[in-house]
């Protein structure tokens, strides 16, 4: 924490804010930067960063919350599996409260389903070893950050000879939607604050096509407030200079080439597949599915269940919010029909969701 406090130093923050103000002072027009990572979204709200930036700089939130971008039919599938006799659902916490078409995992849990919150996929493997008579399904949601550990859990389950451990895959990779949003004529993105943890795996080089082909400045940025202010300053300097390149602010963790070892584990178990994103639709090659040699661990094929017809909730603006086109307060359901206690959309549920952040921290 002493180390962390150095990245929250008020004097340094003041100095960075002055430099940002100086950088944009003579620039005509405004600039819109999108933070792609849900943890960035929470950090921006948690530290009150918007309230400190010049009016010319607007921060918008993108599709970087893994729970939020998971479509409703996946939740329905998880609910159907939870109802399957002899099945244990193991998941990171946020997923349990995301509403499906007619139910959620927390409701199924209250009605008697065995839903366990775990802190690591390996905890789910341990559950499978402890309950050989039950099928343990881990909900494989997340970006390149979590996918390697989930791949590791599959390898571990195989090593232990477990035939009752399964993954319901909805992993996604982040550069695809960034490219789509960069070209969206209804959305002016002048720069990306690129995700920190994901970039530690995929490396800053993964954003080169964005800068080169889509002309969007990109800065890989850490989560501490001083990181974020410096990331904003680096983006602003690029915009003022008319440049579009990839820079690494978070150099103490992220390298240009990322983490090849983690990627090796990831791609040993998973392979790219088409994936549907809430609000964006299907993006070819933007998902991760189990390779054929690991098909025995695929909950979707090994544990067949009847999944209800997906039904999106009327009036929910999650899809547009994930694209940065609508802010939470522009959603007619925000704070009325949709609250963290009774969420209508995923963005209100996740601890990385934009609506949850606005509800919790918005002044």
């Amino acid at each position, binding site marked *: 924490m002493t180390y962390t406090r150095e990245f929250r130093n008020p004097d340094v923050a003041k100095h960075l804010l002055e430099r940002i103000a100086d950088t944009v002072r003579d620039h005509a027009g405004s600039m819109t930067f999108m933070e792609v990572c849900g943890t960035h979204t929470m950090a921006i709200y948690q530290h009150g960063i918007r309230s400190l930036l010049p009016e010319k700089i607007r921060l918008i939130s993108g599709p970087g919350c893994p729970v939020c971008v998971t479509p409703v039919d996946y939740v329905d599938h998880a609910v159907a599996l939870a109802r399957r006799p002899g099945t244990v659902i193991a998941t990171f916490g946020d997923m349990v409260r995301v509403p499906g078409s007619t139910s959620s995992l927390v409701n199924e849990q209250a009605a008697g389903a065995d839903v366990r919150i775990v802190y690591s996929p390996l905890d789910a493997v341990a559950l499978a070893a402890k309950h050989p008579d039950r099928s343990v399904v881990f909900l494989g949601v997340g970006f390149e950050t979590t996918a390697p550990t989930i791949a590791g859990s599959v390898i571990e389950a195989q090593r232990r000879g477990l035939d009752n451990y399964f993954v319901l895959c909805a992993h996604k990779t982040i550069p695809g939607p960034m490219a789509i949003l960069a070209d969206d004529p209804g959305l002016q993105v002048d720069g990306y604050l690129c995700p920190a943890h994901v970039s530690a795996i995929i490396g800053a080089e993964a954003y080169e096509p964005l800068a080169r082909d889509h002309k969007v400045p990109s800065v890989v940025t850490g989560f501490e407030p001083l990181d974020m202010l410096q990331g904003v300053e680096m983006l602003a300097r690029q915009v003022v200079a008319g440049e579009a390149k990839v820079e690494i602010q978070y150099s103490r963790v992220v390298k240009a080439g990322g983490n090849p070892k983690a990627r090796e584990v990831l791609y040993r178990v998973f392979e790219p597949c088409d994936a549907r994103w809430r609000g964006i639709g299907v993006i070819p090659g933007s998902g991760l599915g189990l390779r054929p040699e690991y098909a025995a661990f695929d909950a979707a094929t090994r544990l067949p269940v009847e999944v209800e017809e997906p039904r999106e909730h009327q009036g929910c603006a999650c899809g547009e919010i994930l694209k940065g086109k609508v802010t939470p307060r522009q959603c007619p359901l925000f704070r009325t029909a949709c609250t963290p206690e009774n969420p209508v959309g995923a963005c209100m549920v996740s601890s990385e969701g934009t609506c949850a952040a606005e509800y919790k921290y*918005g002044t």
Partner: protein
Amino acid sequence: MKSDIILLGHGSGGKLSHQLLDEIIIPALSGVARRDQNDAAVLTHGGGRLAFTTDSYVVDPIFFPGGNIGDLAVNGTINDLAMSGARPLAISVGLILEEGLPLADLRTILSSMKEAAETAGVAIVTGDTKVVPRGKADKIFINTSGIGVFDHEFDIRGSGARLGDKILINGTIGDHGMAVLASREGLDLQSDIRTDSASLHHLVVAILAAGGSAVHALRDPTRGGVATTLKEIALQSEIDITLDESSLPVSDAVGGACAILGLDPLYVANEGKLLAVVAPEAAEGVLAAMRHRPEGKGTAIIGEVTGASSGKVFMRTAIGGLRAIEMLSGEQLPRIC
């Protein structure tokens, strides 16, 4: 999606708990208004005032670093009495035991209860024991009720905060919740996080001696943490509070563990902390008096009442930004007190 059944979140101490109380339980039983809901009821009899409270303990695990469910139950009920400004006199103990509980565990828990009561100078005067079949409870549940008297005329209540008041806390936050979570989940945090469970009535005596009628509200931030408790006070008193993040005491161990787990220490439970809302002219005197007590050594002024009417809580962040603070939504850490 509103639920028509009880969810674990209804027991979180946060918003769902308040909804359950406001919409179901209180209308059915008593109808007491929100602004009059305090940690203990104040009864008048024969010209004197009595404080009366009850609480149930269902913590998992029942043993954790620095304490167990037994001393937690005794301290918790003493503190509920103390937060109304009362001097605790006596408590009752209701035990619900699950078939299969080792007698050695029960003896250890009872011994801790006795020691906690003796340390606090409070008598355990009555009780009840029930045993339920295996699976119908989780090892042991404890209900404690307490009764206290007032040695003064001061009126301490959640609706008592006023514009300009200072907010004080007697040390680091989140220790209890993180100790229980680390213990339950078997997390190897490589740091010694222990519960802060302690009785606080002697500290309250010191606060009242130093501040007198300038002490407007006291509350212990248990489930839901400091954030939820301050939001309750803001709503009850119809005022706004602004906290200063750089003044908020958080140990490096708890801060680091929260950062790893994605938790906000403001919402993590405490069992040996109190929030005191004190008129500004008395704040320094109360601060000094609290720091003289062993359980108040770490006291800090963490914020003040900055608005008159809307029931909002804000945080001035370390880098100078401003954000809102809401009640805990759903469940951050289940069953921690």
